[in-house]
């Protein structure tokens, strides 16, 4: 907990003698809380302010400024993209986003993946939608990837599939010295088809390094609350970040 953090937002009564300690609680302006848990505990108790629309709070744990809109705490300053989750992974066979990453707060999501190592080269990086902690492996995925080789600009394929059991984000190089993917998923949380577009470094079998672009969709009207990405075989290491696109 930092120097500005408080655990209560007090309310004073008429005639009450205020101490320096009382004033120090409020002299940071917007109340600063260590976490959303201490924020919630700071309102509505005995001697505390009743939470109401327009109340601001700063959360140290996430370095975010929030405002209460009358029914929920929301990010006070919309930047277009809001960081939702991310992290690093080392020699894992799959990465599954936290359940609830996709919600009604956002419609579309940006996922950036930086693969720094893999155990098997010339290897697809796939994705599957996820609901309530389970990957969806039904044959409803379609995708196509293609691009140009760095060396001569010749066309190269990153593969394609229809009625596949997973979508494809890229095709990792052989040997792989690094692979980055930036993909946008459209409306995964809505009861409609989920589409995606992906741009990446990668390569097709037998071709030199290339940049690959592509996309596809999951055709069923399944509401996903997360997704998993994974190499077709072996393990991967790297980092990832997920962002929500502000709706307005």
């Amino acid at each position, binding site marked *: 907990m930092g120097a500005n953090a408080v655990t209560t937002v007090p309310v004073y009564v008429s005639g009450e003698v205020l101490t320096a300690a009382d004033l120090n609680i409020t002299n940071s302006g917007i109340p600063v809380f260590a976490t959303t848990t201490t924020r919630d505990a700071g309102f509505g108790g005995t001697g505390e302010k009743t939470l109401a629309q327009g109340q601001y709070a700063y959360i140290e744990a996430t370095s975010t400024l929030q405002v209460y809109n009358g029914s929920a705490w929301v990010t006070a300053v919309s930047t277009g993209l809001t960081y939702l989750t991310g992290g690093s992974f080392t020699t894992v066979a799959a990465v599954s986003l936290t359940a609830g990453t996709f919600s009604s707060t956002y419609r579309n999501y940006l996922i950036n993946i930086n693969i720094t190592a893999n155990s098997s080269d010339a290897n697809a990086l796939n994705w599957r939608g996820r609901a309530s902690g389970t990957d969806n492996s039904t044959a409803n995925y379609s995708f196509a990837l293609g691009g140009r080789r760095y060396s001569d600009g010749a*066309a190269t394929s990153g593969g394609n599939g229809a009625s596949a059991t997973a979508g494809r984000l890229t095709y990792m190089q052989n040997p792989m010295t690094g692979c980055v993917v930036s993909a946008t998923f459209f409306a995964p949380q809505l009861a409609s088809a989920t589409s995606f577009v992906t741009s990446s470094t990668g390569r097709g079998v037998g071709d030199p390094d290339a940049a690959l672009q592509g996309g596809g969709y999951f055709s069923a009207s399944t509401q996903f609350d997360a997704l998993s990405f994974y190499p077709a075989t072996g393990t991967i290491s790297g980092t990832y970040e997920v962002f929500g696109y502000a709706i307005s």
Partner: protein
Amino acid sequence: MPSADKPQILDGDTVRAMTDLESAQYEKDQAEYASQSKVDKARAKLKQTTLDKLGLTAEEVSALLS
């Protein structure tokens, strides 16, 4: 302590072994991958055989198709 028997997965913030259900799907995916790899290798071999018959290099074929 993560299990050494099943592949590891990063689930949110936690590294864990795959569940039985996930592991079964993983094995299925690996079998599909092995099968597809055979197809890809056969296709690459056919491509090279064809190039050899034509007497063209891959670069020359690329130039023809670009």
